[in-house]
Every structure is written in C-alpha cells, then in structure tokens.
C-alpha cells in the first residue's frame, strides 16, 4: 500500500492531513467562538456591564407597571442615582436590574435588601450580582458571623455580607479577586463541620450525645476547638418538611377509606396493582367488559398471605353509607375488567368520623336542654315537698283534734249527739284515705308512717341534684358545640379519589428525597479532623454501627456570578468546539480522505500479492484510515481547545479511530472511483500521482482535496 504513495504522493497526502487539521480546528474554533461571542453579548445585554448593576429582581409579569413605578420611586427617593433597567422576561417572570449608587454600596445596604424591596409589587425573589465580588456558597450558620468578620479584614475587601446561605465578599477592584479567593479559601480551611448522622427512627439526645462526641474528638485531637452547633438551622427546614410530609401521608391514609381484600386462591396481586369494585355504579362488573367511570378503582398497598390492603384512587363508596363489601376484579391496562380477586371490604372512616361528630353535636344540644328542664323539675319537686310537709303538719293537728273528738264521743257515750257522730265518721274515713294503711280502728289511723318519711334527706338529695344540674348548666356546652362544629368544618373535604392523588403526590416527592435522621453537628477549629479515622471510634463509643460521619466545609469559594457565567460559557465553547471537531473531521474524512481510501483499495485489489492469514481479514487500507482518523481528530481537538465533559483524550482518539474505520470501510460508498479511468491512466503510463491529480481527484466530491489539487491539475 505504501508503494502507492512512493512517487511523491505522500507529500500531497501529508499536506492534505495538515490542511484538514488546520481547517478542522479553524472551523471548530470559529463556530465555538461565534456561539461564545453570541452568548457573551446576550449575557452582557442581560446583566449589563461589569459593576453596573447589583441585583436582578425577579417579578411576576402581571405586576410589571407597578413594579417599575416602585423601583423608580426607590431609585429617586431612597437611593438617588440608582440605575433601574428591564432585562429579559422568562417563563412568566420579568427581570429588572437595579444598581445602587456608589456611595450606597455598603454592607448595611446589602444586609437589608429584603426590607428595601419588600414593597415592590410582584417581587418573587432577587439575585445579587454585585461586582467585583467573591461568592462563598453554603456558609454554615454557626460560623457565618466569624467568617464575615475575618473576610472583612482581607486586603482588597470592601465589605462582606450574608445573602441567605451564601456570603458575598465585595472587592475594591477586580484585581483583588484572585488573592481574596485564595485568602478566603485559607480561612475556610480553618473550619470544618463534622456531622454525625443517625439512621431514621433513632431518638438522640443531641446535647448529651454531642458532648460525648466532642469529648472523644478532644481526646483524639487535643489542639482543636470544638463547638456543638447541632441546633443551627442549617438544613432543618428540609428535615421539617420531610417529616411533615410523612405525617401528612400517614394522616391521609388514616383518613382514607380502609380497604381490606380477602384474596381468592391464585389471585397473585402485587403492590401497586389496581383492582375494581362496583361501588355505587349501576353497571355490574363483568370480566372482559370495559370498566365504567363510576366504578371504584383501588390500588394495592400491601399484600400479606391471603389478605391485602389498598387505597381508593378513583370513585367513592359514600353513597353506600361508608361501608360496603363487594367482589373485586383485576383492572386490566386496557380499561377492561379482569378476573375476580376476592371479596373487598371498604370502610369509610371519614364517614364514621363525620357521623360521630354529628351525633356528639346532637347529644350536646339535647344535654343542654335537658339540664334546663331538670332544674325546673327539681324546683317543682322541692315545692311539692314543702307543700307535703305543711299538709302533714296540718294532718297532725287534725289528728289530735280528731282524737280529742273521739275521746269526747267515747267519754260522752250515749250523751253524744247525732251531729257529733256524723263528724266523727267523716273524719275517720278521711284520715284513712290520707294515711293509707292506717289502723282500721276509727279515729286511730297512723300518721307515724308519714312522719317517718325523711323529708330532710329528700330535700338534701334534691338540693344535691339541683347543685349538679347547676354544675352542668355551668359547663359552657355551647362552646363545646362550637368547637366540635369547628372541628367538623375544618376536616379536609377530600374524597377518596382526592386522598389517593394526594398520597401519590407525597410519595413522589418523598421518593426523590432522603429523609434525614437525627444528627449532631460539631464545628471544628484548628483541625482538620480525619472523619474516616474517627468514624469507627464514634460508632464504638455511641454503640451504633449504622451512624455515619461526614465532613462539611464551612463554605466553598466561587467567583462572582458574571465570572461564573463566563466560566460556564467557556466550558460550553470548549464542548461545542469538541462536538464540531468530531463532526467536521467526519465530514472531511468523508469528502476528501474517502477518495484516497477508495483509490488505495482499488490498487490493493489489483495488486499481484496473495494475502495470507491476518492480512486477508484486516484490510490495511482500513487500518490506515483508522490511524488517519485518529491523528486528524486528536490534533483538531487539541488545536481547537476543545473539551467535552467526561470525554478523555483517549476517548477522543478512540472516536477518531472509529470514524476512520467507518469511513475506510465504506469509502467506496462515500467517494466511488472510476476504475476504467484509472486503468486507462495506468495503461497510458501515468504515475500514481498523475492518476490522482488528473483522474481521481477532479472526479471526487468537492472539498479540501479538490481545492488543493487545483494548482496541480493540468487538465
């Protein structure tokens, strides 16, 4: 194959390779530069010149006019000389740039940004872009004050201020950027936050355990200063949110209808699968037929033996009074009713709770009325008792008088008159009626029994009852009724379908998060402490093999937003250059080098030599094209300053190799040669170089090869 190049063609081909590399690098760099330049200009338009603006205010587009008025008011009244400008709008949000006048660019101003702009209508959030500055991300709250003081003391620093979890170090000039960043890094290295994280579900006495951990660390690293900063608010919002979500999920599931399924043998239900029950639908479930929209869909949450539990995700059983037992069927993916799975028992706890509340309210109302009526009844009973007592006393007087009368009658005997006799008979009868069960002896009926009644005790009992009724009436039943009514009204008005969706929503969110367990954070000064070396000791001391120890930086140094954006743009430029390099080299290989490979293949096919062994399997032209592809792509990639993330130099070389193999293998498809013309050239005594210059290249696809050949082509 090398013989083909022997008569001077190798020079031409080397020039072609060089030109391919240079052109490839130029095209790649050019396109990448153009993109870089475009984005750079766009960003310049977006955030203004260096140092011109300090904030980007993100505003809801609907409030734009009012926003502008308020920002102009702030600029005119509070900060005369401040600059306000509108920049691009994105996703329903308008963005305004705000630049403080030089004299207002102080720590005090930037520390109270929320209060300055809290009256701006529609303000969603803001981004600080003050320049020149150095950004410290993720500053641990336990050390933020200390860091702020220390940063303020660095030469070239105007001031430092906190911006949420970040801290911005504003510089006197951009020239100080590098030195300040280096010094800030040195300062941050002096601090370390060690976090001992326990698995979920373990109760930890943060203070006591923290002291134990600190004691241990102090033994191992006596020169360090340690502070237990577990109570710092760093990250606690997330913990709280996650715990709240877990509780909410638990509540929703408790509040949802309880679905129990007694599975038929061979049902093979799995968690997450859905089944159908008829619910209150008029359409019965028939396997193979389509499910109706008002059929109840249940998602399986748990399967244990022949029992399963689920949750209603569509439909309701409220119409059946909150409790229903119906046969369940599998729910096929094509909305068809599947095979029966067993008996489904649904109990609507929410319905029961509502029922109980309603009954309680009714009871309390009745009780209130009852206490009033009972008080009246007791009062009347008391009056009756008084009347009775008076009547009894009169009866006693009467009894005495009658006894005297009787005695007179008896003593007078026959001397008694008829009138006296009639009175005596009448009185005896009357007394008998009153005394009921008195002696049969006329004039001797017994009032003792009535007198023996414990009127005082009865009155005392009545008094007690009256007091108790009074106590009941003293209870503010109406307040209880009002509160229970409030509870009833405040219960979520969610049906089972909505609960199912809510649970799914919570599950989806929780699935993407790690629910943190208890943790202890120790701030370390004059460290660092090797967490890998200390972790086993802490596990041993706390007798917990599942805890983990992490080392967290007190903050990380980043350049300011503009520098960061331009750094990203630089990466984008390098990535684009890399991608374009691969594409351009592929095109050049296809347009130009494929012609050479095709011609080489033709000559090889017409060579005299017989090929044996490996040479029969591996076409040296393909090997040659692979090497050419690798060399050209590697050189182009390097020259165009390309860098695709996660792609190493070896990978780039491999891509070039692959491109070369593909182009070499299919070169005749990309650039076929006219064999009859080459044959004529050979017969007429032309050299390989002449054949290439006059026959092959002029007939090939337009490209670098064709262009370079123009000066050498005679016909």
């Amino acid at each position: 194959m090398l013989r083909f190049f022997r008569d001077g063609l190798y020079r031409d081909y080397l020039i072609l390779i060089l030109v391919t590399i240079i052109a490839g690098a130029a095209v790649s760099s050019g396109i990448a530069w153009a993109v870089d330049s475009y984005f750079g200009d766009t960003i310049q338009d977006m955030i203004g010149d260096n140092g011109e603006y300090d904030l980007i205010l993100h505003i809801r587009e609907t409030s734009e006019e009012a926003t502008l008025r308020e920002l102009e008011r702030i600029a005119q009244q509070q900060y005369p000389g401040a600059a306000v400008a509108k920049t691009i709008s994105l996703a329903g949000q308008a963005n305004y740039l705000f630049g403080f006048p030089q004299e207002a660019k102080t720590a005090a101003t930037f520390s109270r940004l929320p209060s300055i702009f809290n009256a701006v209508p529609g303000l969603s959030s803001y981004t600080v872009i003050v320049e020149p500055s150095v950004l410290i991300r993720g500053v641990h709250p336990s050390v933020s004050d200390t860091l702020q003081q220390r940063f303020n003391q660095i030469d070239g620093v105007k001031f430092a201020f906190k911006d949420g979890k970040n801290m911005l170090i504003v510089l006197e000039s951009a020239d100080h950027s590098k030195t300040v960043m280096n010094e800030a890094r040195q300062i941050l290295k002096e601090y370390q936050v060690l976090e001992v994280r326990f698995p979920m579900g373990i109760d930890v006495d943060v203070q006591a355990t923290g002291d134990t951990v600190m004691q241990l660390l102090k033994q191992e690293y006596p020169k360090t200063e340690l502070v237990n900063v577990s109570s710092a608010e760093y990250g606690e919002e997330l913990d709280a949110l996650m715990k709240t979500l877990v509780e909410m999920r638990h509540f929703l599931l408790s509040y949802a209808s309880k679905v129990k399924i007694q599975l038929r043998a061979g049902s093979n239900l799995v968690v997450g699968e859905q089944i159908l029950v008829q619910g209150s639908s008029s359409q019965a479930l028939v396997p193979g037929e389509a499910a109706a929209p008002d059929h109840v869909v249940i998602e399986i949450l748990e399967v244990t033996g022949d029992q399963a539990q689920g949750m209603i995700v569509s439909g309701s059983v409220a119409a059946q009074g909150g409790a229903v037992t119906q046969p369940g069927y599998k729910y096929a993916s094509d909305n068809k009713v599947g095979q029966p799975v067993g008996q489904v028992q649904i109990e609507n706890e929410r319905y029961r709770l509502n029922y109980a509340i309603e009954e309680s309210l009714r009871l309390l109302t009745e009780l209130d009325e009852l206490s009033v009526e009972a008080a009246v009844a007791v009062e009347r009973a008391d009056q009756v008792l008084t009347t009775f007592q008076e009547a009894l006393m009169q009866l006693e007087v009467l009894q005495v008088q009658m006894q005297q009368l009787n005695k007179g009658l008896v003593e007078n005997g026959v001397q008694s008159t008829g009138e006296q006799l009639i009175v005596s008979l009448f009185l005896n009868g009357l007394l008998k009626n009153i005394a009921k069960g008195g002696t049969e002896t006329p004039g001797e009926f017994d009032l003792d029994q009535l007198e023996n009644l414990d009127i005082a005790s009865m009155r005392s009992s009545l008094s007690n009852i009256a007091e108790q009724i009074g106590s009941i009436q003293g209870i503010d039943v109406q307040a209880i009724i009002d509160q229970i009514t409030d509870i009833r009204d405040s219960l979520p008005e969610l049906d089972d379908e909505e609960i199912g969706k809510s649970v799914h929503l919570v599950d989806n969110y929780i699935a993407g998060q790690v629910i943190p367990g208890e943790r202890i954070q120790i701030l370390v000064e004059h460290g660092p402490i090797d967490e890998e070396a200390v972790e086993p000791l802490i596990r041993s001391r706390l007798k917990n093999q599942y805890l983990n120890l992490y080392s967290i930086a007190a903050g990380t140094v980043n350049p300011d937003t503009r520098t960061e954006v331009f750094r990203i743009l630089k990466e984008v430029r390098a990535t684009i250059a890399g991608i374009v390099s691969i594409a351009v080299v592929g095109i050049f290989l296809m347009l130009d080098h494929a012609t050479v490979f095709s011609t080489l293949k033709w000559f090889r096919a017409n060579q005299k030599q017989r090929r044996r062994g490996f040479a029969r399997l591996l076409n040296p032209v393909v090997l040659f094209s692979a090497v050419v592809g690798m060399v050209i792509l590697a050189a182009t990639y390097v020259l165009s300053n390309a860098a695709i993330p996660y792609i190493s130099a070896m990978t780039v070389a491999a891509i070039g190799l692959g491109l070369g193999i593909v182009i070499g293998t299919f070169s005749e498809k990309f650039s076929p040669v006219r064999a009859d013309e080459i044959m004529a050239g050979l017969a007429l005594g032309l050299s390989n170089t002449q054949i290439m210059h006059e026959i092959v290249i002029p007939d090939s696809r337009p490209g670098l090869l064709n262009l370079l050949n123009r000066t050498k082509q005679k016909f």
Partner: protein
Amino acid sequence: MRQLLQIRGLRKQYGKHMAVDGVDLNVNRGEIVVIMGPSGCGKSTMIRCINRLTEPDAGEILLDGKSILNLDDQALREFRRTVGFVFQQFNLIARLSVLDNVMFHLVMAGIPRVQAEARARNALARVGLAGSEHKNPGSLSGGEQQRVGIARALASNPQLMLWDEPTASLDPILIGEVLDVMEELVQTTNTTSIIVTHEVGFALKVADRIILMDKGKIVEEGSPKAIFADPKSEVGRKYRRLIAS
C-alpha cells in the same frame, strides 16, 4: 524478421481458475497477430499481462529482449508509453474533451502541449474524428468513442498496439466503422499489433497470424488460410463452421 515480443510460460490464476496456463508466444516486429477463442479462454488476461495491467503469476515477457516483469515503477511507466492499448469499454476520461483525452497522457509524459496537441489532432484525423476535438466523449456514439480510444493509443506512436476486443461492446451497426478504421490503421502503419477479437472476417483480412486459445492455452496458430482451411483444434473447427455458415 526480428522478434519484438517473446512470452514464455505465462501463467495467471484467479482463485482456482487458471486464466492463462503456460502460454508461449513470439511476435515479430510489424506482425499483426489476432488472438481468437471462446469467452473466458484467457485472451484478454494474456494481453493485459503484456503491459502489466494484470500482473502475471509466473512466466517471462520480453520486449526487445528485455524482461518487462522486472521493471521498476518508472521503467514500467516508460514501457507503457510505448505500448498502445485499446480497451473494450473505451475507458475514456469522462470529464475531458475528445482532444484532451487524446493528448493529456502526452503532456503527462513531458511532451510540450503544442506538440502534443498537434499529434492528437493528427491521430483524431486518422480515425475520422477531425472536427470533434472539443466534444465531450459522452455526446459521441459508441463507435466514435472507441475511435477516440484508438486515436489516444495511436497518438504516442507506439511500437506495439494491444487491442482488447475493441468491438465487443458495440452494436453491430457501429462495429463496421471501427473495424474499417482498424483495418486501415494496421495496414497502413508498420506497428506491431496484437488484436483480441471475435470478428473472423476482420481476422481473415488483416491477420498475419491467428492464434486460437482455449482454457488458458494456445491450441492452434498459423496463417488465416491455414488455420481455417484445415483446423487442428476443436476451436478452429468451430470457427471454420462459422465461416462456412
């Protein structure tokens, strides 16, 4: 008559197929040798081996007593410039005009352009294509294209002309015009020619010697009259029957 070409034990094999199997042949200067035989008998392979368009596997080819199989690249190219080759498929350069097709190899060989053009025009006139110099080969008929091919071969004033079935890809109407030109040329020039053809009538007219090949070997050779009057080989007898019919 002095020998120009000597071929000894020439062999060429394609896979298991022996295309040329130990051919010995001597050609005298100025002699017109017509090689005939059935398709696939090795005629074209042998003629291509002479100018090494096909590399033989074994044997010896001597031109003026010098081996051409041992020539280096440069010497081989110089040798090829002294041998005219007419292809069955014309093999013209499609992008060049008729005139450029005929003169471009002369220019490549170092002949001044003016001189090369004059020789090309002369060659084109000899094949009856004066006035077609600036036409594109694609606009010509098959016969005309083959005549351009012949003119291209003639333009370098070769000492040996190799004709590889020049009429095989032409329709019968066009064959005549090419044969007429060929006949005219071989009879009016003293160029040694080896012609591979199936045209028996043409062979009878122009050949000094006819060689019959079959299965890669020369099976019979002699003057046209001797060959077709009393053929010794089966191939000869078939050609005789063809003439008789």
